[in-house]
């Protein structure tokens, strides 16, 4: 049974971590976006300035505020500022 969330990294976030996604273990009882980001920054300090300007989404829906709950099996996307066109 999965005990992790999948973090999808794009653009500068992907370059900072050196991977397009990482699997991050969370307690079966769940966690918060804030705790996930703190853990990621601890392991990849170069992510910190990028996260400040990024939008986050959980399972394809934008997350408002970093107290949002996440749990095993969730997919969290980190979106640095968009630059399409």
């Amino acid at each position: 049974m999965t005990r992790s969330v999948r973090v999808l990294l794009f653009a500068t976030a992907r370059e900072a971590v050196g991977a397009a996604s990482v699997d991050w273990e969370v307690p079966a009882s769940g966690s918060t976006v804030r705790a996930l980001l703190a853990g990621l920054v601890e392991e990849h300090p170069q992510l910190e300035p990028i996260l400040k300007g990024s939008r986050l989404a959980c399972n394809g829906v934008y997350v408002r505020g970093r107290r949002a709950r996440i749990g095993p099996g969730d997919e969290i996307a980190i979106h640095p500022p968009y630059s399409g066109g």
Partner: protein
Amino acid sequence: MSCEITSRPLTIARVARQLEDDASGAVVLFVGRVRPDTSRGRRVSALDYEADRAMALTRLRALERRARQRFGARRVHLVHRIGRLRVGAASVIVGVAAPHRSAAFGAARFLIEELKRDVPIWKSDRWARAPTGRRRRRRPSPSVGRSPG
């Protein structure tokens, strides 16, 4: 499919076909292309585009609905290319068919501005080699690994 994210080359004719509609008196096509931008003596040779494909498509479809409601657009086609694009290649095409030109121009302008601002697509520069003697970046010493970025 009126909204697409594709790695294939974009063609204006294909988008134009999607906009055929006898009740539309105006068709506007906007094509965004990779330009040979220069900065600090360097020249962009290509752009790498990437997208959060699933979310980008959701956002594009929402924009399409808004263009129909707000401007009365009868046909909307939004297509963005991803992958490595050379200078001159089309990266995005916005097509709108509407009863009158003001609505068609308005909707097309709205769509490209919102697409750039609100759709999870990113570009990154790929620079051509600078002329010899103008390189400013220091080479890492042989004993030190190069860190990303």
